[in-house]
């Protein structure tokens, strides 16, 4: 089975104080930022790796290709994906901050047409832009089914049919989809038994960790030798124009830091209404 996993780097939220807006408000500046893999993408990559391995024997049985749109120094993020276990990577040259969701989806659609994966598994959104529309655009452009917020994934050893569970307000919905398809994952996909592929024994339990697997030093060293195809939007023949124009950016107002302790729910509601004016 071959799975395409789109990934994107985001400013490390632990260093969020370094996120600055250009003086003229036209953009968010990236100087001095430390980058990390978008957490939703990391979970999706973890799910893709689980679907394409025999975890009991620690062997790979399928192929995971990570793809990102970004400048040269986004290669670090790609290497992280390769170090976790992806087989190879594609970097599409571009300024990720300047693209809108439609353009991103168009580029990914062109890559998918070239790669012909059995599945695309991706983050439902990126924690910087928070648009949450690229997976749906992408499925539409490809004419593939879209399956959102999967909390568990089950395939047979061939991997053509995917059974997924989604948590809804009213309960758990179980869906079945034939690939190729676009799938996004919820955080519960990291549950130690959320992904089953018919190869790893069904009773296998993954370690319970927050986020995707750790890249081992062995994986990090191997990643240095794994192939990264570099291409451009032009080479892919994508001519999508931006449908969204960014007009201005501003930082949220600084918090006052004042803390008020209340004695009762009534007092809380009163203060939220009269002082904070949020009710």
């Amino acid at each position, binding site marked *: 089975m071959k799975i395409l996993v789109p990934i994107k780097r985001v400013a490390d939220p632990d260093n969020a104080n370094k996120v600055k807006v250009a003086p003229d408000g036209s953009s968010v500046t990236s100087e001095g930022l430390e980058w*990390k893999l978008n957490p939703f993408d990391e979970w999706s990559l973890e799910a893709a790796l689980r679907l394409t391995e025999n975890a009991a024997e620690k062997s790979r049985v399928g192929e995971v290709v990570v793809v990102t749109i970004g400048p040269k120094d986004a290669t*670090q993020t790609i*290497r*992280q994906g390769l*170090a976790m276990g992806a087989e190879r990577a594609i970097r599409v040259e571009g300024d990720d901050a300047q693209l809108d969701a439609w353009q991103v989806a168009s580029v990914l659609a062109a890559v998918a047409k070239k790669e012909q994966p059995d599945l695309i598994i991706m983050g439902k959104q990126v924690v910087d832009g928070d648009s949450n529309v690229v997976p749906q655009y992408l499925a539409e452009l490809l004419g593939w089914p879209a399956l959102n917020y999967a909390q568990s994934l089950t395939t047979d050893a061939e991997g053509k049919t995917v059974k997924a569970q989604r948590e809804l307000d009213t309960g758990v919905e179980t869906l079945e989809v034939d690939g190729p398809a676009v799938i996004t994952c919820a955080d519960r996909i990291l549950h130690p038994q959320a992904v089953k592929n018919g190869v790893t024994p069904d009773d296998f339990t993954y*370690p319970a*960790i*927050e*986020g995707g697997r*750790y*890249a*081992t*030093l*062995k*994986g*990090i*060293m191997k*990643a*240095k030798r794994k192939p990264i195809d570099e291409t451009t939007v032009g080479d892919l023949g994508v001519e999508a124009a931006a449908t969204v124009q960014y007009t201005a950016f501003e930082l949220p107002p600084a918090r006052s830091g004042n803390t008020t302790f209340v004695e009762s729910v009534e007092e809380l509601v009163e203060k939220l209404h009269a002082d904070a004016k949020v009710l």
Partner: protein
Amino acid sequence: MQPYLFEGDEHAELRRQARRFAQERIAPQAAAWEEAEEFPRALYGEAGEAGLLGVGYPEEWGGSGGDFGHMLVVAEEFVVAGTSVGTTVGLGSHGIALPPIVRFGDDAQRERFVRPVLAGEKVSALAITEPGCGSDVASLRTRARRDGDHYVVDGVKTFITSGRRADLVTCAVRTGDAGHAGISLLVIERGTPGFRVSRKLKKTGWWASDTAELSFDECRVPVKNRIGEEGAGFAAIMANFVTERLALAGQCVAIASLAHAESIRFAQAREAFGRPLVGFQVTRHRLADMATRVAAARALVGEGVTRYLAGDARPSLAAMAKNAASDACSEVCDHAVQIHGGMGYMRETLVERLNRDARLYPIGGGTREIMNELIAKSY
């Protein structure tokens, strides 16, 4: 925090992984584990699963590959991001227990002892020091008498890191006459009749790390547990010393970096006489001196590691690095406590604990005085 000059891209990525592990698995419980004088045994398994215990060990025996430089940066991230020195050194006790087995053991021993420890399934310790014998290793008295396929071991070992929980102890014993030529290394396994933990020791610092006194009373150890030839133990112990001392020096650099960072944070937030502490020149200069001490120690440790990795292992340089880094660490931690004022004297404050941890380093792994003897002999 500046990386060492010997670091490349893969060190940066390895640091990210180790930092994440330390932030998620160590930092939230660091203070509680230090107060409880123990961290959960399950942490070995988690670190093993993440491939972090195996860094610096050959893949053939369950390691993650890499070299001593990779090991050093993992330990630094554990200290700086995990904020528990005791947990770091307890998790890392195999760093001194396993190298003699990897270097001088046979394949059966590597399979039995090295693999399960790197997976975090078993805990290992190194036992050399005795109640009457520390730096003067050649005078150790724990006796191992040959009896058929066994050695019968009698004696006491003390200050053993991870001693209480160790499943296997790489132990220096006397199999021959007085002096260094009579020393051998045996791996003594938990549960061997006659081997017991006689007491848990209370220390100034390193609280989360378990430190014990072990005693051997007519303890029968199979001859197949001997590492290398009989009488070759002293050389195997000596071969460990360069990396052990550089590792300790690296911990000092990490502790001092952390104490400095904590001090900056405190000095920016705490106000006195109407302005933050960093608004006073005396504080700024103290912080600048601390940064300089850390940078100088880091440079010397980096040189020691770089030379070691290039095949130029210099015991005197490792000794200098250990002394320079432990002095820097003691001084920086003392300054950090001073900057924190009354809070610096409180157990709830990180630098109070780091200041206690720092006191180990001019003593452990060869005292300051022994280091100076080594240095004096080198020119």
